[in-house]
């Protein structure tokens, strides 16, 4: 229970700090939609936590937070990989959102001298997942906002 509250507070602080206010831009909107829904899967919960910690670690140049975000990121990756292998949840909105949160993690946690290879591979996987779900899956709710952002990421 307290872990849940901590996660929600972390995500709220992230939105307060890292996202332009009052915007409908696709890069940001899905985060607000995600915040208003209950993240239930381990993959999504840990991906959101990793993304938030990486952003705060970067913004504050806090090595402890960056270290913590890297540990959380490993857990998130394992959980998301497991979700992608599970036919019951692989095409769920939660799994897609987890992948998108992990992409944002890559953005915040990027190394200045990184060649972007990992990010590009993750982006490729994300695009493939968006495609495999099919266009009829994005008509409303979280899925629609995730798709709006995916189109911009495709650019």
């Amino acid at each position: 229970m307290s872990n849940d509250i901590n996660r929600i507070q972390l995500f709220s602080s992230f939105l307060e700090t890292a996202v332009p206010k009052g915007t409908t831009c696709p890069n940001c909107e899905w985060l607000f939609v995600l915040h208003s829904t209950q993240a239930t899967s381990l993959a999504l919960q840990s991906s959101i936590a990793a993304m938030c910690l990486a952003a705060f670690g970067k913004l504050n140049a806090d090595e402890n937070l960056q270290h913590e975000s890297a540990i959380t990121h490993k857990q998130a990756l394992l959980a998301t990989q497991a979700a992608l292998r599970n036919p019951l949840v692989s095409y769920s909105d939660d799994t897609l959102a987890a992948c998108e949160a992990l992409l944002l993690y890559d953005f915040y946690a990027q190394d200045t001298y990184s060649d972007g290879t990992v990010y590009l591979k993750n982006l490729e996987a994300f695009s493939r997942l968006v495609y495999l779900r099919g266009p009829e899956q994005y008509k409303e709710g979280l899925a629609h906002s995730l798709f709006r952002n995916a189109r911009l990421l495709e650019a």
Partner: protein
Amino acid sequence: MRLHVYFKLATNAYVQAFLAGSQCRPSYTSLPLWTQLPWEKIAKRPIDHIPDLYLSHVSLDHRIKGLARLSSDEGRSDEIMRLISTSWETDRQMEELYQTLSSRIWFSRTDYAGRYLRSICDIDTHLEFCATFADFDTAMIASWLWALQASLWSKMVYLYDLLAMKHNQDVATGTANTLLDDLTPNVPQLTYQTNWIDRVYRLLASVPFYLQPRYQITSPLIIATPLGLAYRDLLSQPQFEAEKQAIASVLNVLTDGMMAYRRSLMANTVDTV
């Protein structure tokens, strides 16, 4: 190649070579099923037209690259005419979208943006105006449109050059049986499009807006994409080397340097836009 990753790649020499060889590729998201079905229940917002315009632009780019593969002169001329016609249609759509925003964009005649950029990175570009916007969404759409217009217009200039070159060849070889104006009766002349680099300056002049502390740390992800598009287009324009370098420097600053700069901004309360 996804443009928004340019922010982390721009200054690496190896990557610059890679970018020079990279190609825009049409994506499944340009298929009608993907541009329409997800909006059956929710109307597209202005920003949702940007990926559509971008995809039209990618398709145009792809066809221009395909011109070299056409074997007959006649087929090539026909395709150039079709491409010019498509360009004007895309230009009209961009202008239509831009008109919905124009009352929420302001240009101040000040060298503030240039000074600001020079203060955070090593650039040699002097901007004589600064762009500000009523809100973040307007800024995002405008920046995208400027990058897309610069790209589209530079391609239109290229297509018109090809057309003129073809006509000159025909005249030289005595195979021309008509004047260029007769050959292209329905093709409007380029006017402001020839000054497409102005849109790159507008894009650069919008950067300070995104670096305001209130737009926090996500805005680099957003402005980096149109900057990446402009950067890639400038790779084939050696006369605009300074502008290309300016974008590369800004993209670099948008990563780690920006974070450090923002922290110093907050500490020293430096003025913002």
